[in-house]
């Protein structure tokens, strides 16, 4: 995972509540065995017309003015549904570094943080302000400071967002969480010695 200290970029809004991971990436794209090329499939069924190839001119991500957006602003409860980590892989592949919503589904948030995609929780007023800004001025940019846990709007207002200390450490240092767990090997061995094995799958 690469370090993520700041995000400075333009925004695009999909003001839809409960965007599920089947919309972020439909299941038919999950037959891959690696993480490559999934950006093309992000929001596929909203992005393309029925033939699956022709861009839907109505869909905001196809608007040339928003092509460089790095921050996606979405409706409430983003990322609900399936546990597929292909969802953050697809969003990263499509160029996003952060997603802003009023709340995130648990598994999506976990998956996003493990891949350096920052889930930013804001209040409903800030969400609405960002929807309006994105709509009125496509070149609207925001700044995110991971260390300070702030999202700074074009008017200079800095909005704080929650981020657990461990995920923050991993983002700022570009380390993944597995290293931490691997270092606990002897503690895990002690646990196993104290607790009888509950199931033997190959018995």
């Amino acid at each position, binding site marked *: 995972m690469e370090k993520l200290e700041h995000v400075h970029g333009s925004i695009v809004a999909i003001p*839809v509540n409960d965007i599920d991971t089947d919309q972020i990436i439909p299941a038919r794209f999950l037959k891959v065995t690696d993480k490559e090329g999934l950006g093309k499939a992000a929001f596929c069924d909203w992005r393309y017309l029925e033939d699956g190839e022709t861009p839907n001119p109505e869909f905001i991500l196809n608007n040339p003015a928003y092509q460089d957006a790095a921050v996606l602003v979405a409706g409430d409860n983003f990322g609900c549904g399936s546990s597929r980590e292909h969802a953050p892989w697809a969003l990263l592949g499509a160029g996003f570094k952060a997603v802003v919503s009023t709340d995130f589904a648990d598994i999506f948030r976990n998956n996003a943080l493990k891949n350096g995609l920052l889930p930013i929780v804001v209040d409903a007023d800030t969400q609405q302000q960002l929807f309006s800004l994105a709509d009125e001025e496509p070149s609207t940019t925001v700044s995110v400071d991971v260390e300070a846990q702030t999202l700074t709007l074009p008017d200079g207002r800095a909005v704080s967002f929650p981020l657990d200390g461990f995920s923050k450490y991993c983002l700022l240092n570009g380390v993944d969480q597995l290293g931490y767990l691997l270092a606990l090997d002897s503690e895990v061995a002690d646990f196993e010695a104290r607790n009888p094995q509950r199931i033997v*799958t190959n018995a």
Partner: protein
Amino acid sequence: MTSNGNARTLFEKVWDAHTVREQTDDTPAVLYIDLHLVHEVTSPQAFSMLRERGLSVRRPDQTIGTMDHSTPTTPRNELGIIPVADALAAKQLDVFTQNCGDFGIPMYALGDAHQGIVHVIGPEKGLTQPGMTIVCGDSHTSTHGAFGALAFGIGTSEVGHVLATQTLLQNKPQTMAVNVEGRLSDGVTAKDIILAIIAKIGIGGGTGYVFEYRGEAIRSLSMEGRMTVCNMSIEGGARAGMVAPDDTTFEYISGRKHAPSGADWDAALAKWRALPTDEGADYDKEITIRADELIPMITYGTNPGMGMPITASVPAPADEPDYNRKIALDKALTYMDLAPGQKLLGMAIDVVFIGSCTNSRISDLRQAAEFVKGRKVADNVRMMVVPGSQQVKQQAESEGLDAVFKAAGAEWREAGCSMCIAMNGDQLLPGQYAVSTSNRNFEGRQGKGGRTFLASPLTAAASAIAGVVTDPREMAASSL
């Protein structure tokens, strides 16, 4: 701590018993995992990571694999083999076989007599037991909570963590008691309970919580009914749902392949009986619904929270006070091509799907068969019946249920996830309406442009016969 003194909830007991390292301000808790279920779709990148780092699987003897998501459910050929036509799916299955073989993980491959949907075979084999921690790269892992296990879905990075270390970093969730009081009426099932709960709390209402389902209606359910309820906990935003183990649980487990036996059974039983929530233990939140007031439920929209009693009318966006929710409802009705105030009862449908980790067990198939027996599926309807596992399929065939379905004109398929996730070729066509016993009615979930009404196996079977959305209480079970 949420509880009084030493009184603890079921969840807290299981959590405490698996804490390798306590949660601190700086680090999440480290939780030991008893059982890790893996399948072909969410594991390949995790195995690749192990290879890149030169890591092994710490406990292949606590890991088990099955093929289910991308597998075809079409009939076997003359050699008894289920052919995989899709090259990408075939490659994914080959990679899974290779990975399980290389890392020493036992696995049920396509065509094996014990293969099936991961959340069907865990309980079926007696692998799922009370008090365990169980994870899988699949959000419906919550199913296993029906046994009083703490079971939840994880992403592929976390699949890698568990493969390598048998542990997981987790922030402790909050607890919500979901009380289901009273008894269900005839024609109303476990599926209707969970659809009613999700309609009440909304699709994000359980985010951050572990549910514990309690009350007379839950106690009265069979294990398969409890699995149906726990299965859809995630559709209310909760990663896990649990039911305290009781005699119904123990009776289900007893004698299964991986169940303890002899003196081990007695020792296990003593531990399991200590798991239910202590008197006086507190939950962070509590909700109650009345089972005796429920009628069959059906969804009308594009997430499982958009559900209603089957006799009700589709709600109007104009009546929704919250702006974002108004927009969401409007968008959902446009996709579903439904009008505010419209009744779903009597609406023509194209497909009925009976299957998925929610409703593909033997009791589900028996319920559906009761309606279908001696009748014909309506001409306008394609009915697919997809057993959850090869063992369920064999059991159903030994009871003659396959003959009942086939005589009615339904398709009797091989085991797998099938049209619930529509990544194996079993899918709706654009614009089609389906009554489905699965768990998600998201846009395109069952095929691009397809429209899903989630309902119970009874409602699905009655609708298949009538050709229109039908209240199963209005159609008597076949007397033949």
